[in-house]
């Protein structure tokens, strides 16, 4: 059984004034225990919203409108308050975008570990100052920080160190799934590489299921085993990372790949994607990517393609689905 299984997840933002925005639409996915999955997309694609939904961290005006989120067989989408809170120990955790803003600026790092460990302690568990100090130091060591960080305030740490502290805080409850929401976006390239390496090592050693949310397909492909691409609130592609740069894919994935190149190559050409993502407050007719898609046909503008098997994974594209079927027929005729 998969550790996490979602069916028909829809999330909308309902501002006090103005139109409701469908940020996540009809997401079905299953994550196995120990899988390391990447979730990529442009700003506004719904990747962060989906990550928050999976860990039940959505706050108004965002609302989980419908869908089942089965974590270890229990539908966490229907849990509330204390029932939900109890599931977090050994359950699911979220590491927020920009570690700097996720930490409390007026409390030392040690206090912040105390807050988390006390709030979720088992009955009879030792949460005395000494026990907490020991556990927190162990967690900091796991993210390659010295124990003296415990006595410091967030502003005394560098961006990379703060991000490591956020990761250590997420590890505190020994979760079986961690969603990392753009953990390296605010960091420079060299620090970014080191933080990603730490996440990879932790995931390998501890065996939790990891979801890495990033707008950077390069980072995701370097770190993860499986990549899901989101566009306009839907998952449009889901493939093993090793299969993503070869073969047929959703045209959006291909366009994203074209935005990268090796700076050492003799000729460097960078692609871009013309146009902008659709307005999600309006009803979507057909495939949301069709207006920007070089392959779009009449059917694309009329019908939203389902996420169906393609290559070694799934993709939501009429044109590619047809090309794959024709390919199979040609193959079997031979």
């Amino acid at each position: 059984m998969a550790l996490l299984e979602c069916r028909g997840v829809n999330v909308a933002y309902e501002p006090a004034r103005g139109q409701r925005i469908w940020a996540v639409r009809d997401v079905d996915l299953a994550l196995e225990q120990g899988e390391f999955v990447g979730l990529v997309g442009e700003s506004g694609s719904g990747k962060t919203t989906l990550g928050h939904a999976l860990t039940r961290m959505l706050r108004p005006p965002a609302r989980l409108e419908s869908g089942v989120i089965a974590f270890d067989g229990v539908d966490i989408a229907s849990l509330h308050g204390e029932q939900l809170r109890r599931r977090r120990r050994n359950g699911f955790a979220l590491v927020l975008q920009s570690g700097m803003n996720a930490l409390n600026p007026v409390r030392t790092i040690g206090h912040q570990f105390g807050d988390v460990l006390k709030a979720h302690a088992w009955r009879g568990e030792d949460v005395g100052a000494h026990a907490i100090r020991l556990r927190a130091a162990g967690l900091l060591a796991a993210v390659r920080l010295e124990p003296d960080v415990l006595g410091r305030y967030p502003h005394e740490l560098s961006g990379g160190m703060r991000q490591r502290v956020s990761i250590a805080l997420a590890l505190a409850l020994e979760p079986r799934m961690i969603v990392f929401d753009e953990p390296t976006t605010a960091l420079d390239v060299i620090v970014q590489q080191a933080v990603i390496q730490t996440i990879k090592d932790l995931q390998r050693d501890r065996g939790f299921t990891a979801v890495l949310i990033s707008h950077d397909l390069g980072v995701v492909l370097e770190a993860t085993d499986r990549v899901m691409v989101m566009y306009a609130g839907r998952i449009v592609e889901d493939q093993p990372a090793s299969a993503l740069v070869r073969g047929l894919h959703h045209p959006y994935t291909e366009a994203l790949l074209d935005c990268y190149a090796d700076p050492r190559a003799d000729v460097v050409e960078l692609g871009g994607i013309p146009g902008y993502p659709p307005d999600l407050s309006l009803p979507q007719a057909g495939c949301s990517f069709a207006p920007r898609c070089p392959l779009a046909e009449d059917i694309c503008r009329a019908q939203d393609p389902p996420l169906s098997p393609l290559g070694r994974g799934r993709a939501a594209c009429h044109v590619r689905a047809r090309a794959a079927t024709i390919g199979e027929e040609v193959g079997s005729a031979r």
Partner: protein
Amino acid sequence: MPADLGSATNGQAGQAVPVRGVPALTLSRVSKVYRARGEGRRTVTAVDDVSFTIEPGAAIGLVGASGSGKSTLASMITGSERPTAGTITFGDVSIGRLRAGGLRRIHRQVQMVFQDPYGALNPLHTAEYTVMRPCQNFLAMSASQARDRARELLEIVGLTPASQFAVKLPHQLSGGQRQRVLIARALACDPGLIVADEPVSMLDVSLRAGVLTLLSELRRDRGLSLLYITHDLLSARVITDQILVLNHGRVVEEGPTRQVLQHPQHDYTMQLLDAVANPFAAAGADIPTTDRGRK
């Protein structure tokens, strides 16, 4: 200033405009030392003995990780900070010694595009108003002249039709569109040098190529010089001819961009190169994008 208005209109792609009288920017042995307050009197050398020249029409990349001193250099070039030692000259003006009036004249020639397109625009001003202000301030245009020029500039940076974008407030624009407004604002007083500090690092990858192409075209068509500051070697490769690699405030390597990236000599340059996220290398498929069979 009819001459300035003229040069804004003939910026059509493909038609190289001869380099105007843009002076060269020369940094000679520039250092910047910050002194920490309080006990200990700790000093931080942000920039350490840096010299280089941006010839008229050239595009120079300044690359390095955070804390390498690249943004401090940008602040000194635009006159927001004064060098502790060394001189910065733009033509025959020494930027490091300027006061308010002189800085104003230099800002007519040297303009800046910032990293954060969300923070660099006043949320209460329309795109048109944002671009009109420098026309009125620096070129002494009337409101109606400035409005016409603002619309022209919005078209030039690809916000077409300008009439539709002119009335938009920053929150109604996407990141890429805001960055284009910032570029239009930087172009408004027809500067000779644009200092772009990480202009695409906060944009989606899908929008980066568009903004980089725009900067390249503007440079070619208007004979602008460009100082491009980044930690991203891929964008530096696309947009610059020469790069300087900075580490701890010192230039550790410099030369033609392609040569430096293909044959890096310094460890730090190699480290930066290794940190570039490359999806193709990651997947073990060593194929450049252009050869990847599509369609």
